[in-house]
Each structure stands twice: as C-alpha cells, then as structure tokens.
C-alpha cells in the first residue's frame, strides 16, 4: 500500500493539475468570446432566419411572436435586437439567456398590452424603458461590462432575458 501524501500536498497537486488542465482548456472558450465573431448571439449573416437559431435555440417559448435575438440588418453586427412582447401577464422571451459580446449595442423593441417599465441591468446605473399599452417602444444601450444581467418587466416582476455579456 503506497503511503498517501499529506492532504495539503494532495491539495497542492490537484490545484496545479486543475490550473494546468484549465490553461489547456481556456483557449477554446476565448475563441467563442472573441468580440464580433459569429459565435456569439448576433451573426453578421444577412439572413435573419438562420441567425435566430443562436442564443435561445433551446427556448421553450410557445409564442410565435417571440423572435429570437437576431441582427436587425446586414452590416449591423454590433447590434443585438430583442423583440419583446408582453401579453396577458406573460413575457416573451421568457427568461432565456442571450449571448452578447462586450461592447455590442442591445436594441429592445417592446410591445405590451399594459403599461410597464423594462429594466435592464448593465453593471452601471442600468437602463430603463417606459412602455405604454399597445404602443411599441424602442430603446437601446451598450453592453459595456462583462457579466450576466437581467432584463426584466418591472410591473410583472418577471425576467425577460438574461444577457450573458463576455
């Protein structure tokens, strides 16, 4: 029976192993996180239907009006568009995660059947968008800091999307 190393030697060895393993692994996520690469939510592709497969393809949302985030126009690679609809106290998208590259602009188009306020946390002071019932509201802000941020309906207290900014 080999003598087992002291626990702290074990801890040190495994720590080193972790760091070594991870340093081998981190090269791949950093490719995904490269700004303006097509790996993140918005794609530079000019065909919106194909881009909508990104970010929230796992969406369980049933509403047909819930279009996934996609680029608004060709050449607008630095803009992520969120089409948000609020109806019968349900939000759409419904709590999905949306990948955003740091520095991209997030543009929200909101239609709601009741007056509401959309809050987007951005790491700074945040962004607020007043929405009147039946009137589409448009607002945009720059995702300038890395992190996961909630975009929520203030009146319903529901999370619309979580922006994953890298």
């Amino acid at each position, binding site marked *: *029976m*080999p*003598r*087992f190393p002291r*626990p*702290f030697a*074990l*801890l040190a060895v*495994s*720590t080193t*192993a*972790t*760091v070594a*393993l*991870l340093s081998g*692994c*981190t090269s*791949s*996520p*950093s490719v995904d*996180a490269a700004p303006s690469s097509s790996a993140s939510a918005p794609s530079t592709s000019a065909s919106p239907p194909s881009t909508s497969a990104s970010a929230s393809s*796992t969406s*369980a*949302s049933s509403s047909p009006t819930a279009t996934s985030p996609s680029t608004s126009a060709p050449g607008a690679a630095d803009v992520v568009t969120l089409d948000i609809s609020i109806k019968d106290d*349900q*939000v759409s998208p*419904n*709590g*999905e*995660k949306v990948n955003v590259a740091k520095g991209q602009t997030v543009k929200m188009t909101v239609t709601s059947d009741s007056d509401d306020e959309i*809050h987007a*946390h951005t*790491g700074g*002071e*945040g962004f*607020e968008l007043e929405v009147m019932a039946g009137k589409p509201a448009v607002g945009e802000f720059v995702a300038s*800091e*890395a*992190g*996961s*941020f*909630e975009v*929520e309906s203030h009146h319903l*207290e*529901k*999370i619309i999307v*979580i922006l*994953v*900014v*890298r």
Partner: protein
Amino acid sequence: MHLLVPLHGIGTRHDLPLPFSFVVVGAALALVISFVVLFFAWRRPRYLEPGGTELPRLTRIVDSAAFRLAARLVVLAVYAWAALALFAGKDLLTNPVFGFVFAWMWVGLVPLSLLLGAFWRVTNPLRSIHRGLCAVARTDPRVGLVELPPGVGIWPAAVTLFAFGWLELVQPNRTTLSVLQLWAVAWVVVVVVGAVVFGSRWIAAADPFETYASVVAQLSPWHRVRGQLRLVNPLAGLNHWRPPPGSAAVVSVLLGSTAFDSFANTTWWIQTVQSSDTSSVVWATAGLLLMILIVLASFSLAAAWMARYGRDRSLPATEYPRRMAGSLVPIAVGYAVAHYTTLLVIEGQRTAINLSDPLGRGWNVFGSAGMGVNSAIYDHVTAIAVVQLLAIVSGHILGIVAAHEKSLALLPTRSALAGQWPMLLVMVCYTCAGVILLFSP
C-alpha cells in the same frame, strides 16, 4: 437616473456561466480524487489529536479583558452605525444597510471566520446587548429562567438560518427598508429574548450568524484546546470538532440554500416559475425547502449507512449524520466562495462607500463617499472561473478527506471502504451539482 431595484438580491450582476470545459474538468477531478482517497489514503486515524503549535502569548492577549472589550465595542459601533441607516436612513438602494446585511454580514462572515477563527462568539453584538442587560439587572448572563435541554444543540439555528435564506432568496421587496426593519427586529427579539429565557447558551444555539460563523471557524487554522489557542492544520481542527445536535441540519441548510440560489438562475426554473399561475413566492419557498431536504436526506442516509459497520455497536444510526457533519463544512464553504466572491468584492465596496452617508444627507463621515466601485474584477473572466472551480474542488477534497478521517475513527479498518463509499458518492454528486449549477444551464 436612479439606481434600479433588482428583482433578485442586491447584486444586479451575476457571474458569467462557467465554461463547459471547466465543468468537465471539475467533475473529473472530483471523481478521480475521491477514488484516490478511497483506495490509497491512510488506514489509521491521523488527526485524533489536534496537534499544532500552542500559542500561550496570543491566548493571553485575545483573552484579556481589555482586548475583548475593545473588540466588542468596535463591532457594536459598526452595527449601531448600520442600525442608524436601517431605522433612520432613506429607502433607496444607496442605503448601506442592504449591502451591510447581504454582503458584509452574511457573505463576509465566511472569509472572516476562516481567517480569524471563532471571533464572532466573542464580538457578537447581540451577546454584548444581552450582557449589558444582565449587568443592569445584576444577573448572570449564563443563567436564564428555564434551562435549555442539551438535546436542543443548534437545531434552532437550522430554523433561523433557513429564515435568513428565505429572506435572502425568496422574500419579495427584500431591498426595501420596511421589510428589512421587520426582519432585523425579529432577529434581535428572537435571540435576545431567548437568551433572557434560556441564558446565553441560547445565542450559540439560535443566532444564525453566530452559528454560521462557528461552523465555518472549524476550518480556520486557529483552534482552542483546553482553553489554549493553537495554530493547527485546519483538517485536524475540523476533525477535533464535536458537532452539537442539529449540526447536519445546519450545514445542509447552508449548502442547500446556496445551491438553490444557483438553481433559481437556470433557464428551466425561471421559465417554469414565470409561466405558472402559482405565485413565485410559493415556488421559491418550495424549491428552497426541497433543495435543503435533498441535501439533508442524502447526507443523513449516507452517514447512517456507516452504522452497519460501526465500531461502536451501541451508537444508533441516527447519531452518524451529526458525527459526520464536519465533513460537509468544507463543501459548504467551497460553494459559498464560488458563488459569492464577486458579490462580496463589488457590493462590499459599494457598502463601504455608502456607509459614509448612512442617512442619505450627503455626509462623508469616513471619506469614502466620493469613491467609485472598482469593478475591474469582472474583466478577469477566466480568473473568476478558475477561482470558482478551485473553491468547489478544494472544498470537495477537504470534505472527502475529512469524511475519510472520521470514518476511520468510527469504522473498523477492514470495513472502512465498505462503510464510506455512499458518503463519497454523495459528495461527488454535491460537487458535480455545484459545478453544473455554476455552468448555469
């Protein structure tokens, strides 16, 4: 523009999901290390004695009346300042009391207890208040009106810790003053009135913060043996801990509530709750309770399994979860570090800044009011992920080593392996669940 009131806790920003490669590495490490420990670790208990270096001079200093009085007064003053903000401040997110409670008091307790050991028991402001009351009434703080049965242990703290977890994760409008005032008054009344009724032992049994601090302090390098402070190997110190009744429940509440905090951020949970007609308070209460019960049940069953092989046949299976409770402490601490480090750094700074102006009148008492929060930590995305993974994996390693050591004391050598594999399996599950929750699916 005013600060937005966040729906969830005080942090308006969460950590990025852990990269998937980190999840795989973390899970693989947990599995491999567990098997290494199970098959190759020592076969005789090696931490029966706490060992370490005796520190008589340090003991004299920290036990001196002047040092204790000074430490108590400093902590009491800090709490009085926070209470000023709580009861006389403005109901804005710039009120420092929110960060004081959720970042400084709750999260900050973990690193402080790891570094300083069982300091909270000495400086607990509620103990100071109780001691003051007893001095006025000329009674002995240790003696109450009724004697607390010894079997109570720290069971009351399992309940009060659950209550705090509920406040932190479920309570609607928790970042409004009226809600927090109510909870603060309830906390003081439950702890201080209980101490008057049962004597000061009640504070150790029921104050959620003191109990949390005492449990985490078992992992600190400072340990008291026969009144003398020692600098010890934290594993030896942890092994030397005799967990009071209710310890398994307390540690399960800590681990379960942290796990639920992560679980509540998964897309599946958010969508399920938001599409449902049932109130989110009901969902979150049930989810929090269920998560804690899963931890408590799995841990208790794995510990009770050991009774089949136990050295001491007269020790009932129900005693084993308590005896083994120490091995969950590193895992709970690892979870807490992984989940709340960035929150402590960011909201901790914000709190320090806002504490200069507790009443929102433009004061700058400590000169910190004009400072900005340094959020540079968020630019180090990979570093945060590495710290999170290291915290979870280190907690796991210390946990299984502690469990192994305790098993050797409880089980005969030949059946140590047969007796402890369920415990190892349960711990691997906790660790894998921990990294998957950080991946935030």
